[in-house]
Structures are given as C-alpha cells and as structure tokens.
C-alpha cells in the first residue's frame, strides 16, 4: 500500500512539467491558426459586421496579446478553470464533464472486450505455435488490424443497424425515453454494441498478436522446458506458466494504447453520433474553438496519465506473484 502511494505521488509530481509542455505546445499550435472562433460563429449567423466581431473578441479576451492570454490560461488552469467555450458559450469544464462519461463507457467497454477476447484467443493461438488455430488466428487478426475503424463502423452500422435492425444506428441512448435504472443501462448497452465492436477490433487483434508472440517467447524459456521435462500436463503449462508470463507486457500495452484509443474515438463517435469527448474534439476543431480544444487536449492528457498510473499500479500488484515463476530470468 505504501509503495502504491509513493508511486502515485511521484507520478503526480513528474506529470506537472509534462502537462505544462502540453499546454504551451498546444497553445503555440493554435496560435498558428488563421481565423478564430468568432469568425466561425459569425458564419453561423450568416454574416455580421466588424463591430459585432470586435465586441465578441473583447468579451472572450481574444484581442489581447498571445503571451498575456497564455499566462491567463495557465494561471486559470492552476485553479482548475478551463475557461469558456466560444462555440457553446458555456464553461468548458462543464461541457467536457458532460461528454466524458459516454467516451469512458465506450473506451472502457472496448478495452474490456479487446483485452479479454484478445488474450483468450491469443492463448488459443499461442498454446500450439504453428498449429492450424495459430495460423488462422494470426492471419485473421492481421486482417482485422488492417481494417480502418471508421470503415468497419460504417459497415457494421449498415448491416446490423439498418438492414437487420438488431441495434440502433446512432446515439448513446434512446432519446427522451424516460428510462431509468436497469432499463436505461440496458438501453445504453444496446447502443454501445456496434461502436464498441468498431473501436475494439483493432485492439483485440493487437492483444491477440502480443499474447501469441509473448507466449511463443516464453515457450522457449528454460523454466517451461523444465516444466515440460517434469512431465506436467500441457494444459497446465499453458495456463499457469506460459500465459501468465506473457500477460505482463499486455498490461503495459493497455496504458500505451489509452492515448491511441482516445484518438480513435473521435472517428467512431462521429460515425455513430455519440455525444462524447472525441466528437467534441472534432466539433471544437470545426468551430475553431481554441479554448475548448485546449481544454480537450489538456483533459485527454490528464486522462492518459491517470490510465497509465492505474496500469502501473496494476502491474506493481501483479508483478510479485508472477515474479516467483520467473526464476530463470
């Protein structure tokens, strides 16, 4: 427990400079942009004169110098204030917190699906390297890995939502249904099936391949050879020795993939019209809403830091038990 706290504390301290780099870097990037959110807003009005634009810019502080705005931003951020979105005219933190749960559900489910199914299939493939199951899964997973997720999403929605009508085409829940409790949870789950499948497939393939590769590596190690020499049942060797040792790198990979998956949710949430964090990012880009985009990037960075911390904690918790088996290395 004490070890865990030290880890958390150390991580938090080391994250601060990294976050600062993210903030300054993003700020500089957005400074390069031509046109700002006020322009984008005026188009939605169908035009507007210079006076209106000027007063809007003043009210959002867009007329100040870049350095002054950066300083204001960083100091507000220190008070957990992300500012006000120009496109939505609301506090950014509110908007993000409203959208984040949907994305966390989407990513969480996709991760669980990809991790469990990927690991299991990986074990099947890795149990007998070079076997028929191994070859089939290997090729199959590569093909999955190569399919663009937005494309998969379109096809899934076409087949299972529009043609077969098994699942809804879009959204996170039935709108204004008045459902609560379990009924609502089931409703949300039904809406999540297709997007989760579209988002998770690529990671399923990834975990499958890693698991298989990891197992192939472990098979060759001395302690497995020793176990086989002792005449232990193959099934027991596969599960107790090989699979468990191959699992560790996957846990690390979970953390590394968090950022990629968050990026992937941008496209998936657009295809399935899910009011999530990823789509918000696209909306912010389209509306040239620099403060909102800043907020999104900062929050996603924090999110990735937290996920990695959790992964590290899980790793620290898993490691000693597994370490016992790793006498040879």
């Amino acid at each position, binding site marked *: 427990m004490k070890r865990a706290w030290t880890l958390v504390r150390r991580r938090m301290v080391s994250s601060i400079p990294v976050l600062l780099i993210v903030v300054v870097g993003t700020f500089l990037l957005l400074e390069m942009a031509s046109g*700002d959110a006020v*322009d984008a807003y*005026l188009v939605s*009005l169908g035009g507007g004169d*210079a006076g209106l634009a000027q007063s809007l810019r003043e009210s959002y502080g867009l007329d100040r110098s870049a350095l002054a705005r950066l300083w204001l931003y960083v100091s507000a951020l220190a008070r957990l204030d992300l500012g006000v979105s120009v496109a939505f005219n609301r506090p950014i933190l509110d908007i993000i917190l409203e959208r984040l749960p949907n994305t966390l559900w989407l990513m969480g489910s996709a991760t669980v699906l990809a991790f469990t199914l990927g690991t299991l299939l990986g074990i099947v493939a890795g149990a007998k390297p070079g076997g028929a199951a191994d070859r089939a899964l290997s090729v199959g997973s590569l093909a999955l890995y190569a399919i663009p997720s937005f494309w998969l999403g379109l096809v899934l929605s076409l087949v299972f939502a529009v043609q077969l009508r098994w699942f809804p085409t*879009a959204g996170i829940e039935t709108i*204004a249904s008045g459902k609560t409790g379990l009924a609502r949870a089931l409703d949300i789950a039904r809406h999540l099936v297709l997007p989760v499948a579209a988002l998770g497939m690529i990671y399923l393939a990834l975990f499958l391949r890693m698991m298989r590769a990891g197992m192939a590596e472990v098979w060759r190690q001395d302690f497995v050879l020793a176990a086989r020499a002792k005449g232990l049942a193959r099934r027991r060797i596969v599960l107790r020795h090989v699979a468990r040792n191959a699992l560790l790198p996957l846990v690390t990979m979970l953390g590394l993939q968090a950022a990629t998956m968050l990026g992937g949710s941008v496209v998936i949430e657009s295809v399935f019209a899910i009011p999530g964090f990823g*789509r918000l990012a696209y909306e912010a880009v389209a509306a040239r809403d620099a403060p909102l985009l800043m907020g999104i990037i900062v929050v996603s960075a924090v999110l990735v830091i937290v996920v990695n911390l959790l992964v590290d904690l899980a790793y620290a918790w898993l490691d000693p038990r597994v370490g016992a088996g790793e006498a040879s290395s």
Partner: protein
Amino acid sequence: MSSFQISRRGLLQGAASIALLSALPGAVHAQEAPQGGRLVVAADSEPRNLNPAIVASNAVFFISSKVIEPLAEAALDGEGALAPRLATSWEGAEDGLSVTFKLREGVTWHDGKPFTSADVAFSAMEVWKPLQNLGRIVFANLEGVDTPDDLTAVFRFSTPTPIQMIRNALPVVTSVLPKHLYEGTDIASNPANNAPVGTGPFKFAEHRPGEYYRLTRNDAYWGEGQPKLDEIIFRILPDRAAAASALEADEIQLAAFSQVPLVDLERISKVPGLKVVTEGYEALTYQLVVEINHRNKILADLKVRQAIAHAIDRDFVVATVFLGFAAPATGPVPQNAPEFYNPDVPEYAYDVDKANALLDEAGYPRGADGNRFQLRLLPAPFFSETRQFGDYLRQALADVGIDVTIVANDTPAHLKAVYADHDFDITVGSPVFRGDPAISTTILVQSGIADGVFFSNQGGYANAELDAIIAEAAETVDTEARTALYNDFQRIVAGDLPLINVAEWGFTTVASARVANVGNNPRWAVSNWADTGLLP
C-alpha cells in the same frame, strides 16, 4: 403560387431523377392530420444562441421558429405572398416614412403573460435594429415605434424606406421577444436565449447538449385546433450518413435541409414508408457563385471573366453536383423570386471554343505546357456542393488552359482568407437570397464595404453605375419603380460579371410517409409546423 411553380419548373430542367421524385403523391396540399404524437427530427448543429431575434439564421430558425413567431410568415399565396402570424395586417405610408402593423388579439406568451404592441416595439428598437445580423440592415433607418394601443405598432423611419423591402423581410427579421423577460437585462446574454419563451405552437422544454432538443405542445396556442403534434424532438445527428440510416430504421421521422445527401435520394425514395419532398424551400434559395478577386490584373479583364463563365457547363453542374435538385442561374436574383427576377440579361452558354478565343483575345496564349495562367481557387467549405463544384471548376478551367490549384480551408480560415485578407483569386461561395435584393444581395457587388464583412463584395470590384442604382433603389418607395431598378441591377451584374452566378438551389426533406403537411409553405423547414401531424 407562382413562386412554387417556377421553382418546380426550374428543378425539372435538371436530371431525369427528379421526375421520379416529383411524381410522389400529394405531400404538399393540406392534409387533415390527427392530434397527438411525437415527431423526431434530425438536426445537424446546436446553435450557441437559439434566439432568432438576434440570430436570423436557418440553423436557429429550424428549432426556434416553432417557439418564437414573426409578425408574418412566407406563404405560397395571399397578399404579398405572406401569411399573417403575430400581425394581422401591415400598411406602408405613401411617403415611405412609416409602416403600421395591426396585431393579433388574444395571444399569450408561454408563461401566461399577454402579448401586446409593447413587445413588438421593444423587439424592434432593442433587438432587431441594434443586435440582429439582418435587422441591422433592414431597420437601419428605424427611428422609433409608436404604440397607440395594445394592438397597433407604428414603425417610423428617418428616410423613405420601401414597404416592399419591409414586407419581404418580415418572415426573417421580425421574431418577437417577450419584453417582460428581456427588459433591463443584457439581451445578448439573457438565459432565455437558450431556453426561448415565445408565442408559438410549441414550448421549449429541454436541451440535452449533444443529444437533443425537446419542444412540447402549447395548449394555449392562438391557432384553432393547433398544433397537431404533442412533441417535437430535434435529435442531433451531425453525420449526414447517420440521418439516412436513422430514417430507414424509423428512429427519426424527418430530415430537412438535405441532411440526407442528394445522391442517396433516388434510393431512399424507393424505401417503403419514406417520402422525398422538394417543396418548402422556395424562399430559402442558396446561390452557387464564383467570386472573383478583381485586384488580380488578369481577372480584372472582362474578357477573362466572360471566358470563365463560358467554360462552366451549368447544366452539367446542376445534373451532376446537384443531381437535378437545382436550376442553372442567369444572374444575381434567383428565378424563385418572381417579383424581381429578370430573365432578360446577357447569358454565357457553355462554349469551350469561345472561352479559348476570348482568352486568346485577352492576350493570354497557351504556354508550352498548355496553360495560360494560374489561379488559386478557394471553395467555401459550407456545403459538400460548394466543395464539389470547386473540384468541377478546376477541371472545367483546365479545359481552357487555366491551371487551378484548390486551397482547402476550414470555415474560419476560408473567411479570413477571402473576406479579410483578400488572399484568393477565385472562390466558390454560397450566398442566400433573402426575399429582397436589398437584404443580402446588393452587398455582394456594391463597392465601399469595409474589409472583413463576410458575404459581401471583398473582391475589390467597383462600378459607379451599379452603385448608383443600388443607392437609388434603397430609397425608392414606389414598388414598381424599385423593381425596375433591380431589373437594371441584374442586367449590369450579369453583363459585367463582378461575380459569376452558376446555379441556385433549395433543399430537400426526407420524411416518413406518416408525416402530414410537409413542405406546404415556402419556408416550411423554418416555419412553425403548427399544422404538421403524424398519421397513424
């Protein structure tokens, strides 16, 4: 009536696919709809301000027009093609210095307070004139509004103001706000801007950001037996492909503003239970325009502009980019505005040889690589059609030896490049014709407009004759004389080509066959839907 017929004829000039769609049985004529039901509609954006008195844009009207009403709505027939809403009559004085509105009796706001002329006076003086994007133009010379009694409002102008323009502007610029909720507050940041209170057939119930808007029936609505529906839900579906799928799965019953892509219409019109309606956009005409930077020496030459006009195959554009759901344009006023439309203007038939000859004449022979000169084209990113026409234009100009590079920008960058920095050679734009040339059309060619005003002449074009006509029309009270001036305006623009009008288009609605009374007025998508119903 006439405007509707012309629109249809215009559409029929296009591809054959339209014949099939128009043959669909009676979507337009009044149907008897039963009471009750929930209509779920696709919406592609969430305006940050839902107040149509401040933001007169179609995205805002689409939702808020059911809640907040104007003085009058556009109609297929009736006096001046208007249907009375909160006003029952309007009359301009001979001298053009005042307009008198008689208001409807017995109307209450959604919060129960009575609607009176004080609300109209407040909206006009405190909101439309100073704050609204279009009202700032229409009511620029509005001096004051007198309210002799609760049901009369007299608008006083400092200079003669044509009643024709005021009338044409009524549906768009006169959304009335409740004075008792806005008076003494900061109007631009009033919370009612995002939870509007009006007199319309539906009350604003809730907004779940990213998910939906919900409107519920106003039981105290003044229209007898209206509204029909219990509830309207605007479901946010920003992805165009999503709307078609949701319609087919009956998750939504209606998608307006061509949210179902044109290319999908022929297929979807064959899906049982769905109908495609092209009516209901006659007064919402968008124009496909090639804007030109006259600061570019090459483009300042009329022959070059004429050559470009001859190089564009308008019929091909209508048939391919718009799949027939548009009409070729002849000038700056669309055929959908019969009050003003002048067909007797110089035309530029598709003629590659003539275009080549004109360019040779202008002194730009083809070089060794077959090209005469290079241009940078900035297609506006507002519609997939403007982008696609950009792709087409690049090819069409390549045929006459003009090497075009497309510069793709997102909306803010595009606006800055074109309207503020003037950093372009040609652009593809999509201005809207708003019922009267004085509202948003003359500004496209008039000189002396400040830098940075969007959707205005930022190409550096200046024509004293044209400017004089525009100025004169703005103060001509007599409707006939004013219309004649706009006929000249069209002739000069079409002849001198400050910009090139290519096509004009409305939108399409796809709805469940159960939705009754779709598209029965020229601004249907942004009207109040009081008679819209759901058949069992």
